């Protein structure tokens, strides 16, 4: 009996907070996705069944936003992990300056997405334009944020700049975990640098790949802050990502029911891709 009291004393406070902040809103959120409401307390909430879910599949802007998000996620996934892996190989090559390089490469990750987006907004708009005017290379140096395709690439650049250092740190931990004798044995057997990298390091880095792919995948798919400060969805909503579309639907247009239905779909997709990704990569991990 006394043990139950201790158990409650230790776990109840956090459970209570967690339930009111996460569990209850999540459950209520499912209910909200079946009603139509404009967010004004005095106005009625009308039950519409699956109508919101049907409506969102004919919402062109939403479908376009979903497509853009998928494209952005794929590009970011590749850029972040290729760069992060390269960085980690560079700073684990035993050079004396590795530590300071690592410190610098990781730094962008600590700065919040909102602030990063603003810094790059200046670079992609005014700084690029000025460089184009002075150097004459205006084919590359123009205001990227006015062109839908370049604006999307700009988002990939900023997201990659922020996340590459993060994956680098995880890859470094993975590389340092590879026992030296395995690499030495391969070297003695005559494996060259490339073979040692692809046949030994990469397979043994599989757990790190799992983590990094998972983190960059869900991070890219849920991007909001950088999206808000860099392009704010523009030009003409062409870079409005999934998360921003949900926010605008609910708080911008006051379509609480429809927006919440999108939010539930968002959750299902995030859960689905991250779970499959973890299962797929876990299968390929090599046991030492």
């Amino acid at each position, binding site marked *: 009996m006394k043990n139950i009291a201790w158990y409650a004393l230790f776990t109840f406070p956090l459970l209570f907070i967690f339930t009111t*902040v996460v569990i209850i809103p999540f459950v209520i959120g499912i209910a909200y996705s079946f009603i139509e409401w404009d967010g004004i307390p005095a106005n009625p909430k009308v039950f519409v069944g699956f109508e919101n879910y049907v409506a969102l599949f004919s919402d062109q802007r939403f479908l376009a936003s979903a497509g853009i998000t998928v494209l952005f996620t794929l590009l970011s996934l590749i850029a972040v992990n290729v760069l992060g892996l390269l960085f980690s190989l560079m700073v684990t090559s035993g050079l004396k300056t590795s530590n300071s390089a690592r410190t610098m490469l990781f730094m962008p990750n600590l700065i919040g997405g909102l602030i990063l987006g603003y810094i790059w907004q200046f670079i992609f708009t005014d700084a690029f334009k000025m460089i184009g005017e002075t150097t004459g290379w205006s084919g590359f140096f123009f205001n990227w944020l006015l062109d839908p395709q370049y604006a999307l690439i700009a988002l990939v650049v900023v997201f990659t700049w922020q996340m590459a250092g993060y994956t680098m740190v995880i890859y470094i931990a993975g590389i340092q975990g590879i026992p030296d004798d395995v690499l030495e044995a391969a070297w003695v057997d005559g494996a060259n640098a490339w073979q040692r990298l692809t046949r030994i390091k990469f397979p043994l880095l599989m757990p790190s790949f799992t983590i990094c792919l998972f983190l960059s995948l869900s991070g890219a798919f849920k991007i909001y802050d950088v999206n808000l400060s860099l392009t704010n969805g523009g030009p003409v909503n062409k870079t409005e990502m999934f998360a921003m579309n949900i926010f605008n639907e609910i708080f911008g247009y006051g379509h609480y029911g429809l927006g919440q239905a999108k939010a539930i779909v968002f959750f299902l997709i995030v859960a689905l891709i991250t779970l499959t990704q973890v299962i797929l990569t876990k299968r390929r991990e090599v046991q030492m």
Partner: protein
Amino acid sequence: MSKVWSRRILEVLLVVFAAAYLSPIYVMLVNSFKTRLEMYENALALPSRLTFEFYAEAMKKMSFLTAFGNSLYVTLASVVIVVILASMTAWMLVRTDNWVSRAIFLTFVSTMLIPFQTIMMPLMQVMDWIRSTLQIPMLNTHEGLIYMNVGFHAGMAVFLYHGFIKSVPIALEEAATLDGCSKFGVFWRIVFPMLRTITVTVAILDIISMWNDYLLPSLVLSDKGLRTIPLSTFYFFGEFTIAWNLAMAGLTLAIIPVVIFYLFAQKNIIKGIAAGAVK
């Protein structure tokens, strides 16, 4: 000899590359000192003089010191509460191995998949209901934001503590219990000090994410005087987008606390990030 030299060159190249990677920071910094004319002449050149007028103006317009104080209060209070409550909860869940504990743990972990956008609207409805029915000011107060921060970071923290505590030997705790120490005493005197490494990890991960968080504070706080740094940066930009030199000074101000934190806790941050991700 030539091998030593090529190594030196590689070492220099590595640092030059890493510094070039941070060039956006350089662009921000140099332009925060330039006049409009100077900026348009060459955005990449060093400023001709060091003037802090834009900093003074940005500081005033962002209410920087207030925002800094607000961010500090909200972040530190949230982190302390998360650390205390999550470590206690995780310890009980590990040491009481039954279906209730397993169900609670599974709930904490599985909800980590829920994106913020999925619960932001209903969360605001729940908090508004608490405010109007129970008269507890959950909205537009720092304490309300702290409460929600704790809720959102609970899952991750419990998960990290849970994994760590499983590897802590139980023998010491049993000896202390035999000596008549209460559960409370056992936890705070014996267990918690042993959790130091994972506490540093949890604290660092939460400090970074709470300090930089924009969306939740933007929904919870509406008074100007309550704004955190990301919020005041956002409103600052809404009002003064054209004056880039002023904007760059404001952004530099916003980054300074992060850079100082990084300089002092660099080793722990990188270790903490790696440990937090690998778990």
